[in-house]
Structure formats: C-alpha cells, structure tokens
C-alpha cells in the first residue's frame, strides 16, 4: 500500500502551458508539503498545509497554486510554465499539527514527479 502517492510520475510540457500534479496520502496525517528538487539535487520547501490550511509559502511565484480539497490531498497547479520550473517535485506528509512549531515528526515522501518544460 503506497503511503504517499503522486501523479503523474513524469510530465513533459511546453513553455506557457498550465499543468497540475496530484498528491494523496493514506497515513491519516494532518500536514502535507511540496518540495522542489533542482538539477543539482538541492531540495527546498515550497508549501506546507495543515488540515487544508496554508501554513508556509516560501516565496514561491504566484504561478504556483496549491490546493487542498481535504487533508489527504494536496495538489499543485502551475500556470504559464517556464523553463526554470523543470525539476522534480516531491510531496510529503507528517503527523504534526499547525502548532507543532519546530517539528521532529518524520516526513514521508512520495516518489516524485519529474517535470520537464521544453
């Protein structure tokens, strides 16, 4: 049983298009995240949601819009794709609540979505 799943696994698209990546977790966790991994393997947080509420938006361009229809899902929609958006996007989840502060809860990662913008 997959704990954190993402679709699609690969996404190839043209500049200027709009695309979405879906994420689902079946762990019953309260908090979900999106991370971006660049070509140098550097990972950086993009968004954090707790129980459908946005907690962190790390200076991500507003072309990126996360949507959480319920606490088990956190989708990422990207408008007007640019070459620099090419990366691997990872979804993750953890148990901690919004008042957890500096959380030591283990984050469970999905397999990643490799986005290539041509």
């Amino acid at each position, binding site marked *: 049983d997959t704990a954190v799943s993402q679709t699609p696994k690969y996404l190839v698209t043209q500049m200027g298009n709009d695309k979405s990546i879906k994420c689902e977790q079946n762990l019953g966790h309260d*908090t979900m995240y999106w991370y971006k991994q660049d070509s140098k*393997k*550097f990972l950086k947080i993009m968004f954090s949601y707790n129980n459908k509420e946005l907690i*962190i938006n790390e200076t991500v361009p507003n072309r990126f819009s996360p949507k959480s229809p319920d606490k088990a899902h956190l989708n990422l929609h990207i408008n007007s794709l640019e070459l620099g958006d090419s990366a691997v996007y990872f979804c993750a989840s953890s148990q901690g609540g919004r008042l*957890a502060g500096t*959380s*030591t809860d283990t*984050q469970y990662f*999905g397999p*990643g979505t490799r986005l290539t913008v041509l």
Partner: protein
Amino acid sequence: AQSVTQLDSHVSVSEGTPVLLRCNYSSSYSPSLFWYVQHPNKGLQLLLKYTSAATLVKGINGFEAEFKKSETSFHLTKPSAHMSDAAEYFCVVPGFQKLVFGTGTRLLVSP
C-alpha cells in the same frame, strides 16, 4: 536560522569498507537532526533521526550517526558498505513546519 552543511558532495568507497558522510549544523540551541536517503529515481526515506535522547543513533540498513555538540557535527557512518548503499544522502534539520536540507552527498560504491 538553523542550517546544515554537508562537507563532501561525493564520497567513493569500495564495497566492504567503512562509510563516513560528514554533516555540520548551525543552531543557537541543540537541534533535532535527521539523515534521509534518496536512491536513484526514487523518493526520500528517513534513515535515522536525533531528537536529544541518546547521542548515538542507530538507523536502518546498518547506518548510525553520532551527535557531537562540541563539534556541531552529526556524521553518518556504516562499518561496511554494500553496493545497494549507493545513493544521495541528505543531512536535514527541522524548521517550523518544514525540513531544511543540506546540499547532499552522493555515495558511490565500487565492487
């Protein structure tokens, strides 16, 4: 702000020899620290975590790490490398509702 520095971008070992992946942290207080592993074209998996209990932490697949406050270090070790250990390893410090990743160390294991 808390941060981690991974001192080596690549480490090469032979199968059966010890592994040492180095990580230094910067924090105004004793932090929690994690090591995550990413196998090629896979997601990230938690190897081990330190949360101010025992300073020597044992993880999965025979890895362990020791928290040394005097040296601000949290190096990852394994006595004997296996081919399946070849992967990217990240030292990580938790921030508010997020993880802060080091730049990663690629472990190469040769037969």
